[in-house]
């Protein structure tokens, strides 16, 4: 009796061709003949290492026991399906101790007053007298032309073409706008700011100390301090930090008869001073904000995932480095996304934090013998805020300690006037090309901003 396959062969002309059935036939009857390695007899005797090309070790074969198997669901394509690891399993999660977190998005609803309360600081809404006196004394040749050319470079002449974020129209939510390509705002800001910083540095021919400064970009910063038993943790990525090899000398030397006697040096008395105890009198008059029954930490969220210790952002080297100026480059989409008050409050908090870290490094025993001064500059599009912070105390737990920190605030400095909003739809100026034309034609430049910038930059040089 012939087998069925043989029958098939016999009846071949009378059967259907195997076109569509081929898959079935292959599944049922198919055989895969594995080619065997056959050695020619001439080679058998020789001791040759034979490589079998048909039976190579399979690179796609499943790994053996020793290699850990990774689930294919962890492919980056499907990573969004994987539930995030619980925060409690993070090695930095503090189970026993939570802190109040203040990061770059935190808003203090009472603004500067609240920040002053949290950091025990007394604000003065002007630049210190010692800096005011130096305004406009030093200048660079053609500095205003140069700054204007930087503005033009950043907004109109830089050839970067990137996909800009889509515009919105708050009153017509469904309206869509054309895609625009141009210079992203972060790049615009970095062009202006870096050019300004390095333009200041070009005075290094007169002040060689400037070449001992360093500019760090995008460095981490965090610190924790205790305020009346509550831990407050500050955390931020600092966009630009300028460091110098000498610490800034304090603005106000003689705080009290009892404390801090380092200001006896005659030189320092000339460079920075407090004429007639001006600031001391003002400070005595200052009343801290009374928020009762609200806690001043109301705006800070409780957080258990944080890093202990202090971080300035760079490794210590042979020579010491001290923070000179911190540049806060805002990434707010809109100039009105936060109020000036909230931004200043943030700046005060972080500048205070930096000063605190520096003071702890300088005086590890906790006794501050000389105030620590740090400047910081806020920058958004064309808006500058300047701040000078003086840390006078390390004691934030004791109610009886009357020593306070000082901060000098100079806010709302516009490098040029009336920059139209490019984020919201603006019927008159709402496109990049209009912004470029606007800047090329009707730039109204304000020279006093760079004078302040330069004066702050030149603090602490000899």
């Amino acid at each position, binding site marked *: 009796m012939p087998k069925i396959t043989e029958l098939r062969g016999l009846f071949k002309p009378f059967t259907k061709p195997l076109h569509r059935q081929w898959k079935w036939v292959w599944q049922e009857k198919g055989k895969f003949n594995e080619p065997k390695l056959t050695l020619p007899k001439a080679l058998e005797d020789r001791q040759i290492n034979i490589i079998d090309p048909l039976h190579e070790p399979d690179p796609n074969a499943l790994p053996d026991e020793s290699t850990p198997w990774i689930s294919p669901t962890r492919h980056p394509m499907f990573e969004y399906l994987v539930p995030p690891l619980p925060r409690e399993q993070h090695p930095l999660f503090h189970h026993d101790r939570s802190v109040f977190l203040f990061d770059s998005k935190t808003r203090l609803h009472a603004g500067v007053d609240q920040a002053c309360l949290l950091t025990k600081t007394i604000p003065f809404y002007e630049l210190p007298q010692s800096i005011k006196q130096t305004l406009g004394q030093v200048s660079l040749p053609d500095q205003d032309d140069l700054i204007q050319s930087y503005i033009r*470079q950043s907004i109109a002449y830089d050839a*970067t073409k990137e996909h800009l974020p889509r515009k919105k129209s708050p009153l017509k939510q469904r309206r869509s706008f054309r895609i625009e390509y141009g210079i992203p705002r972060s790049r615009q800001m970095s062009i202006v700011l870096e050019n300004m910083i390095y333009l200041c540095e070009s005075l*290094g021919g007169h002040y060689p100390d400037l*070449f001992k400064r360093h500019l760090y970009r995008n460095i*981490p910063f965090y610190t924790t301090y205790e305020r009346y038993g509550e831990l407050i943790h500050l955390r931020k990525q600092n966009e630009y930090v300028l460091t110098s090899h000498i610490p800034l000398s304090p603005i106000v030397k003689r705080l009290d008869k009892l404390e801090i006697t380092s200001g006896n040096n005659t030189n320092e008395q000339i460079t920075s001073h407090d004429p007639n105890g001006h600031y001391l009198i003002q400070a005595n008059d200052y009343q801290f904000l009374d928020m009762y029954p609200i806690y001043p930490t109301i705006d800070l969220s409780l957080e258990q995932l944080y890093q202990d210790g202090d*971080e300035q952002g760079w490794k210590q*080297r042979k020579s010491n480095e001290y923070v000179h100026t911190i540049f806060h480059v805002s990434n707010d989409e809109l100039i009105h996304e936060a109020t000036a008050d909230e931004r200043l409050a943030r700046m005060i908090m972080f500048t205070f934090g930096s000063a605190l870290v520096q003071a702890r490094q300088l005086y590890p025993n906790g006794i501050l013998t000389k105030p620590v001064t740090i400047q910081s500059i806020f920058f958004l599009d064309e808006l500058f805020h300047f701040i000078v912070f003086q840390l006078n105390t390390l004691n934030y737990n004791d109610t009886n300690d009357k020593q306070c920190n000082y901060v000098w605030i100079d806010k709302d400095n516009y490098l040029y006037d009336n920059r139209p909003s490019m984020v919201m739809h603006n019927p008159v100026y709402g496109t990049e090309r209009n912004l470029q034309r606007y800047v090329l034609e009707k730039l109204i430049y304000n020279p006093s901003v760079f004078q302040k910038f330069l004066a702050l930059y030149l603090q602490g040089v000899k």
Partner: protein
Amino acid sequence: MVILHRTSNALKWYRLTLCRYKYRLNHPGVHIPHGVQYQTPYNLPDEYADHPLYPPIRPKYPPGSWGSMDSKKAWMHFELGEKYYRHLKSVKERLTIMAYQNMMCYYDKLDVEQIDSKLIWMVNGRPRSPRSLPFYKHITRTHVTDELPKFYEQMDVESLLNYVKPVLIERILANEYAQKDDIPLEDMYDKGDYKISSIINEKQLKIDQQRTTNVLTNMIRTIINVLAEHKPYLRKTLIGSDVPIEAWWSLNLNGEKYDRAKWHHDQNTTSFQFRDKAAVQVKTSRPLRSIVDPNSSLCQTPVPLCSYHPPAFKVFTDRYLPMQIPGHWHGEGHDFNLLSMYSMDSIYKYDSYFNEDELLPSLMSWMVNTGHAELLAQAYYLGFSMWREPTYPLIAQLVLSNRRQWIFGVYQLNTIGHFKPHDAQITSNICWVSPLMNLYDRIENGELINFNDNILRQLLRFILNEPIMEPNWNLTPYVEDLTNLDERYKKFIRNLYEVVKLEKQDSRDHHRWAKISHDTTVFNRRYAMMTTLFKDIVFDNWPREWYGRTLEKIERKKNMPLFKEYDLLMPVTR
């Protein structure tokens, strides 16, 4: 009507022989509106002269050297150039028209369905295949010399070096060693996810390039600030980081047969587009001193032809708007290169690290590429072009670096008319390249080991190479003075330039998805908008090839006479 599809030969045959006369090819009135053919009136003026007045006989070749190019082609190119310079007053107009001319349809899309731009060979700095130096030399007409020009060695920088060196070492260390990276808390420990090495490498490369940009910027800015007191021009330089460099040029095929990317004006030419980013660029408003005389024997060195096609060197085509960008948009004022630095981190990544032996030739071709492209774009900004050779040589000083390894180069651009055949071009461009050097071997305990002063010396010499402050020749001989132009014309020029400036460039992936709304590309639409908005200027000043589709239509409507006018124009006299 499948047989008569627009691509079929049957259609051509049909249109040539069979169809209604109106639809025949070559019949005036379908493609190019010609107005009305008026009958010649019978009362002809008396134009007879005693001696016949013939137009002057045109010489076989237009002025200039054209080599073995066909004389008709040569005249065509010549007239193209004349037209370009006669009608377009400003560089911005020229740049826009250059981009527009590469779009596939000039006219209304009556029978042209394909309306996107033509194919161009896309090149960037890093060569993508080994042994590609002959190719890049050929497409840029460059002669490469493997040492730097001698005059750099005469510059004495020792005292400056002693002052700058400790400062720079400190700053390099601050960037390379001291600075900490901000790592988000979520990334601080291994989450056990599947990591793909190629993605990680890509990220690492991005980080490296960012670092290189930062370090190089910092070094250059420091040196410039040190010198700023004594060299006031340095304070006024324009310094940019991560600036885009783009350049377009057309190259004669020299008898090769290419099946694609031919330039539509002349099927014997092809075109290239260079795109890359310079890590740091320093520009001034004055030119650098030329290094050799363009008539000297070095510049007459013939560059050997490379007969392999671009795909052999992994150079492929794409659709793109031809652009000339030497780092910034036109009109900034700092038009001359002082120094450009490129990050070469990627040379060891991908497939471009071929071998230790191939490293130097690869870097040489990188140098040739970037130097040529940057100076070419610069030449276009100065008013020169493929039809008007630069009247003085343009110089670029180049550095390739991955922070540790440095290689220096100098490029002198003598000629940019690559569309002419090989035998028509006598001068070639010259590129001098130094050997590859290490700035330091490694960083140990916060110190640079084996710091190499020679690199610093060379860098200082590059920066101290002072531009000619008062050149006694016209830097932009082909750019007209626009100050007396009326306000509307100025507005037109600026608006027109914005069409190329702020539009997304045409590229293949752009076309695949976002293509053709309202029957054209975005570029064409905006071009039409601008020409329509300022149609008075366009009608008065431009030849009709550059009108664009909308203006074509408008113009045709205007010229079509009404019946009344028709009667008046053709009075019955008999």
